[in-house]
């Protein structure tokens, strides 16, 4: 046994180590963008010194929706049903307005089965961070298109996507979300910055993060990697083999435009917003998204923000304390009051 003292552990302002922010071991594919996002959440919550036991995590169903089990292990989490995490989160936040709520879900979960709850969540200015781990496919059910898939892309099964994609950021901006951002799972710094902004925001923050599915994103025309191997008749077992990849990591300067190559060899063109973009104007944000779409670019950064003094709870006129734990004396009216009501009904 060594007698030298351990080096002092690194802790944050509330005295916790980064370890206290980790979750269970991921069961997602190696190289899956979702894992990078989990890592960013761990880092930022640690750095900001948020009490993990004050956080509530929500998700629907999908690979992405599994990920809350892989970060913030000391926080309560609720892995609900497909597409309906917004209602679970809304209920929980109503019950306890002091919670820091974070909802992590997929594009299938959000834009297909869950689009109704998504849209109506946008209309309520609930302080909640809503992260879409956006890969254009249903990962967990093996690669069918989701509603955010680019028109014209081809699935692993060979089907061409023939419907226009839904832009969840555009919807969010129009329907009332007060902070709307887009990022890329490989862009550590940007994701951290956005997460921090969201944690400071008094209202709903939507963060759509392009998070490639290494296993089922297999775009046509790709010249490398997985598709390439298949085309060149390399001995891949088609039935259930999932190749291993490393996480993609990029670093970009503000204002920069960059083509990033994904695992399957396809390219994505990212444009990082620069400093003079004013995200407080709705019209700017809408125009930006329209223009990027036309240029085939993905604009990343905080697209829209509307700082708010009051949130959904204020609008409902709720008491400051969590409703969940109000004592009986505050939630059961007096006997006299019941007598009075009875008298009126006589």
């Amino acid at each position: 046994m060594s007698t030298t003292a351990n080096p002092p552990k690194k802790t944050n302002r509330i005295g916790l180590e980064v370890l206290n922010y980790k979750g269970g071991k991921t069961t997602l594919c190696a190289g899956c963008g979702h894992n990078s996002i989990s890592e960013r959440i761990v880092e930022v919550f640690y750095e900001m010194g948020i009490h993990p036991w004050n956080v509530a995590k929500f998700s629907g169903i999908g690979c992405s929706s599994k990920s809350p089990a892989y970060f913030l292990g000391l926080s309560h989490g609720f892995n609900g049903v497909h597409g309906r995490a917004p209602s679970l989160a809304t209920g929980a936040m109503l019950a306890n307005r002091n919670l820091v709520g974070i909802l992590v879900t997929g594009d299938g979960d959000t834009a297909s089965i869950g689009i109704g709850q998504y849209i109506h969540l946008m209309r309520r200015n609930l302080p909640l961070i809503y992260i879409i781990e956006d890969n254009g496919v249903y990962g967990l059910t093996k690669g069918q298109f989701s509603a955010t898939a680019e028109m014209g892309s081809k699935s692993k099964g060979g089907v061409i996507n023939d419907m226009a994609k839904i832009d969840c950021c555009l919807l969010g901006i129009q329907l009332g979300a007060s902070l709307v951002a887009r990022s890329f799972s490989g862009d550590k710094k940007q994701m951290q910055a956005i997460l921090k902004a969201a944690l400071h925001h008094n209202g709903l923050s939507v963060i759509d993060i392009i998070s490639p599915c290494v296993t089922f994103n297999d775009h046509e025309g790709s010249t490398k990697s997985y598709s390439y191997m298949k085309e060149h008749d390399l001995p891949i077992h088609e039935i259930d083999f999932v190749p291993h990849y490393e996480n993609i990591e990029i670093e970009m300067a503000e204002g920069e435009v960059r083509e990033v190559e994904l695992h399957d060899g396809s390219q994505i063109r990212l444009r990082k917003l620069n400093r003079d973009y004013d995200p407080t104007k709705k019209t700017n944000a809408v125009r930006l998204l329209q223009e990027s779409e036309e240029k085939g670019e993905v604009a990343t950064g905080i697209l829209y923000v509307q700082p708010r003094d009051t949130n959904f709870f204020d609008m409902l006129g709720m008491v400051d304390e969590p409703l969940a734990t109000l004592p009986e004396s505050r939630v059961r009216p007096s006997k006299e009051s019941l007598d009075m009501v009875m008298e009126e009904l006589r």
Partner: protein
Amino acid sequence: MSTTEVTPIASHEGEGPRRIINDFSIQVATVNGSGSQTSNTVLMRSIFQMGIPVSGKNLFPSNIQGLPTWFTIRASKHGWIGRKKEIDFMVAMNPETAKEDCLSLEPGAALVYDEPLKLNELRSDLQMYPVPFDKLVVPVCPEARLRKLVRNMIYDGVLAFLLNIDMEEIRKALVKQFGPKKAKAADLNWGAVKAGYEFAEKNLTKTDPCYLERMNKTAGKIIIDGNAACALGCVYAGCTVVTWYPITPSSSLVETMIGYLKRLRIDKDGNATYAVVQAEDELAAIGMVIGAAWAGARSMTSTSGPGVSLMSEFIGLGYYAEVPAVIVDVQRVGPSTGLPTRTMQGDTFVNAFVSHGDTKHPVLFPASPEECFSMSIEAFDLAEFYQTPVFVNTDLDLGMNNWMSEPFEYPTEPISRGKVLTAEDLNRLGGFARYKDVDGDGVGYRTLPGTNHPAAAYFTRGSGHNEEAKYSERPDDYVNNVDRLARKFEHMRTRVPKPAVEVNEKAAVGILCCGTSDYAAQESRDQLLREYGLETSYYRVRAYPFTSELAEFLDRHDRIYVIDQNRDAQLYSLIKLESPPNRIAKLRSVRYYGGLPLDARTVTDEIVMQEGL
């Protein structure tokens, strides 16, 4: 609306001119959206104020304005306040249905009608009272466009004369109806009532036998509908999160609740100790309820059959993930394009079993406003103790009609929040296993998000976990877990509301029912005894899973008639599923599913037939 039975209107008052006192039904046929509900409510209330047991049932169409609607008032000195199958006294105001209304009456019944309808030409075996409403309304209501409204008030006056209703009570009921701020409106309407009375006094000769006389049977009682009673129950249960989506016949439950919450649950700083959210649909409503309950709120929603169907998946999650929820199901008939304004006990089965997989849910069956109130409170206690969704199963008849009721009793027990571990508990225990059956009742301990302790957190998902709430796909973990859920369900039998039982030592026959079948069943027992000499016992189920009393009751009797207000004998089926063959052999089914509130005669006739009497 046609009645096929011929039940002679017999006088119970001995010899002399046939006189029926405080024991008949009045039906008013009008058009919805025409404002007749005020006249009807005032009528009902006046009788109530005279101390006579009374009930009022509104039979309305699924639209907003222009379709036929019927309001039935029953006065019963015996206290029978279920629907009476036969109409003794009809007020025909609706030209569209007047002919059928008239033809549907039993010979000898009374008929007040709008004179131009000339119903006297249709038959001669009724007691006819023509009233020229349009003529009468002109002098009392100079403003032409209001006449349509005020016109209905006239029949209150006519009936006051014919039935001997105290005009002072009508006046009082009117004032109560309009409130102090609408004195002018009350005055105008009072004028119409008087005009009706005066017309009748001058022009009509009483030929029917129906009379009202003061009694003393309503003192201290209240008038309330079941939805309002549930609403009050939830308010006094300390419910903190309410989410809903409008649907007939449940909408008024939350709407009334909002009113009471605003009055009773705003703290001294003007802040609400509750949150009410109108959700975008029922899937969101139940999701919010489950999310809120998971985070520790007492949360509820109210809906009807179509809503329950939409909530199926989420309720299953609630069952497996063990999250409390209170769902009030105000039952109606059929799918969305069914008969949403008619009553039925159609959701008994779906309440008990909704969702896929092996799911079972406790269901409470209130039969009266008092029970709507008390069971709404009990539902929260059960949901939180057993950490599972609980149904309160009421129906349109109970929920939307006005009922005479004892005033509600203030809860004697404090609110009980079930097995929740606090930070202090965790300090003491060091940790906990969320899904471990520590106490032998199948119920684990939970923590709420936000509990200030590093060991508080656990991860919630459906059935894919072990006792420590860790992800698991192991068969043994799954089996352990769902076996515990089954044990938990069994344990509920010891805690759910006990049945209302009346054992008649002389009876070989039992009558068993739930919810609003109570009224018809009780009255039918009286009919069976008086008319056929058949002694019966009575068992009203107040909760599913059933309690131990059920077996005892079945064992004690030879034949048990189970009453269902649905086609498929849903209550009967539930009992069959839970009973051994020897008890099943004794079960008989009595079903009614026409969408009107159940009446005693229907029950009696069916039992008489099956008994071969």
